[in-house]
C-alpha cells in the first residue's frame, strides 16, 4: 500500500479508531511537533465536464487538514468534514508509518476500513439492484 492509498483510507476511517491508534502510537515514543494545527476550511471542487471538456468550479466542500512531524518524518492528512481530532490523529499515523513506527497497526486499520467500504457497497448494491428495469418485448 503506497502513501496515497493509506492517506485515502485514513481519510474515511472513524474518528474513534484513528484517535485510539494515534494515542497508542504516541504512548510508546516521542511526541509529535504540530506543523499545521488542524484547520477547518473549504476545498473547491473543480470538474471537467464531459461534453465540451471545460473545467468549472462546482462549489466547496468542508474539509479539515493537519500536518505534524514525528521522529524527523512529516505526516499529513485531509478529510471531509470538520473533525479536527480525527485529522490530527490521521496525520500522526501517517508520520508514524513514515518514521518506521506502527506500520503494521496502521495497515491493519486501513484493511479494516477497506473491508467496511466493501461491505457497505455490497449492502448498498443489494438494495439498488432490484431497481434495475427489466423490459419485456411485447
Amino acid at each position: 500500500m503506497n502513501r496515497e492509498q493509506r492517506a485515502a483510507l485514513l481519510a474515511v476511517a472513524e474518528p474513534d479508531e484513528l484517535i485510539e491508534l494515534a494515542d497508542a502510537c504516541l504512548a510508546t515514543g516521542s511526541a509529535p511537533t504540530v506543523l499545521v494545527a488542524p484547520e477547518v476550511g473549504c476545498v473547491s471542487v473543480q470538474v471537467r465536464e464531459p461534453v465540451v471538456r471545460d473545467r468549472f468550479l462546482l462549489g466547496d466542500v468542508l474539509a479539515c487538514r493537519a500536518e505534524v512531524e514525528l521522529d524527523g518524518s512529516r505526516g499529513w492528512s485531509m478529510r471531509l468534514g470538520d473533525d479536527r481530532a480525527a485529522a490530527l490523529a490521521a496525520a500522526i499515523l501517517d508520520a508514524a508509518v513514515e518514521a518506521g513506527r506502527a506500520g503494521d497497526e496502521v495497515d491493519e486499520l486501513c484493511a479494516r476500513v477497506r473491508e467496511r467500504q466493501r461491505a457497505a457497497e455490497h449492502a448498498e448494491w443489494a438494495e439498488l439492484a432490484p431497481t434495475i428495469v427489466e423490459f419485456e418485448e411485447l
Partner: protein
Amino acid sequence: MGYSGVRGGMEAILAAERLVRRSRDHAPAEWASTEQIVLRFRLAVDRIMGEAGLYHSPTAADAFRQAEGDVLEAAHLVRAHRSTLPRLAVTEPVDPDEMVVLRRIVPANRTPDGPQLLGRTTDYTGRLLEREGDFARDRAEPRTEDDDSARNRQPERTPEQRHPRRFYQLLRDLDLVVEHGEPAEDPEPFDITRRAARPPAPRSAVLSSMARAETGALVGLWYRSILGPDGDVHEITLGDTRHGRVPLRVVHPHTGKPVQIGEIRVTEAEGIEDLDGAEEDRTRFDVGYGLCFGHNERKAIAMANLDIAWRRAEEDSPLEQLLLLTTDGLDSGGFLEHLKLPHYVTFRSMVDRKLARREARGSTGPRVPEPFGEECR
C-alpha cells in the same frame, strides 16, 4: 412634513428575536437533531448545500433548523458561514465518468450501455398524502425477505453497473453529436466566489452560477423559455440522468501525487438538443450539461437545458444576463427582503416630489428647478 434623524427600535428588535428563539428552540415538541434532519429531510439538506455552495450535510441541517425550514434563509446562513472559512485546496478536476451510480436513467433510449437503475425514487408511483395518524410509528421497517440472505445472494456489482458508459459516448460512436474535441486552450475556471460574474462571461462562470443557483429560479427560467415569450430553449430529450458518488482528490503536499480525501454525492444530467439553426449541423445533436451538489434532479435537468440554450443563444439574447444576474437566491431574495427595511426618507422624498409637482401644476410662472443638493428642512 420635514426630515429628522431618529434612532430607536433596538429593544423591539431584540424582543422580536427573542420571540423567534423562544418559539423555535423551546417549542413544546421533541428537539429535531442534526442527524434527524440529515436523514429525514435529505432533499432539503441537499438543496441547501447546493444553493449555499458548501457541501457538508450537518452544517446544512443546522441551518435548516435555525431557519425554521426556510431553505433560502438556510442557504444564506451557510454561505455566510462559508465566507469565514479559508480555502485549503482546489481538487484535481473531477471526472464525472468515475461516478458510482445510485440512480441512473436514460429517457432517450431503452437499452443504453449499462442498466436503467431507478434507485431511490417515487417518480413512477402515485403519491398520496400520508397523515401522521395513518403511520404507525412503532411499525418495524418493512422487509420483503431476510436482508442478510438477500445480500449474500446478490452477485458482485459489475464495472458496467458501477460506472455505466454515458449515453453521450454512444451518440458520439454513432456520429450523431457535434464533435467538440479537446479544447484548444484550458483556461482556469472562473471563480464566482471571488468575483461577480458579468456578461460576457466564460462558460465556466455560467456553469458555476447555475450549480449554485436557487433551484426554483433555474426551473422558472427554464419554464419561462418553454411557455414564455423568450423562445431561448427548446424542449430537450434527456440522455443520462444520474445521482451518485464521485471521488475528490487533491495533490498530496509531500509526494505531489493525487490523493483521495473522500466522496460527495452529485446529480448529473445530459440534455440532448435537436439542432435546427441555419448555421448549425442539422444532421447532428448537441448536448447540454448539468451537475449540482446532492440529489436535485430538477436543478441538474434545468441546468443542462439552459447550458445548451446559452451555447446556442444569439448574440443579443438576454439569457446570459438572466443566468448570471437573476438566478442566485441570495441576490434576489436579499434584494426582496431589503424592501422590508425602513424606507421612510426615500418615500418621504417621493411624496415631496409629488406635492411639488402638484404645486407647480397650479402656478403660472416659469418653472425653476431646485438647486442640486439643497438641504432638507
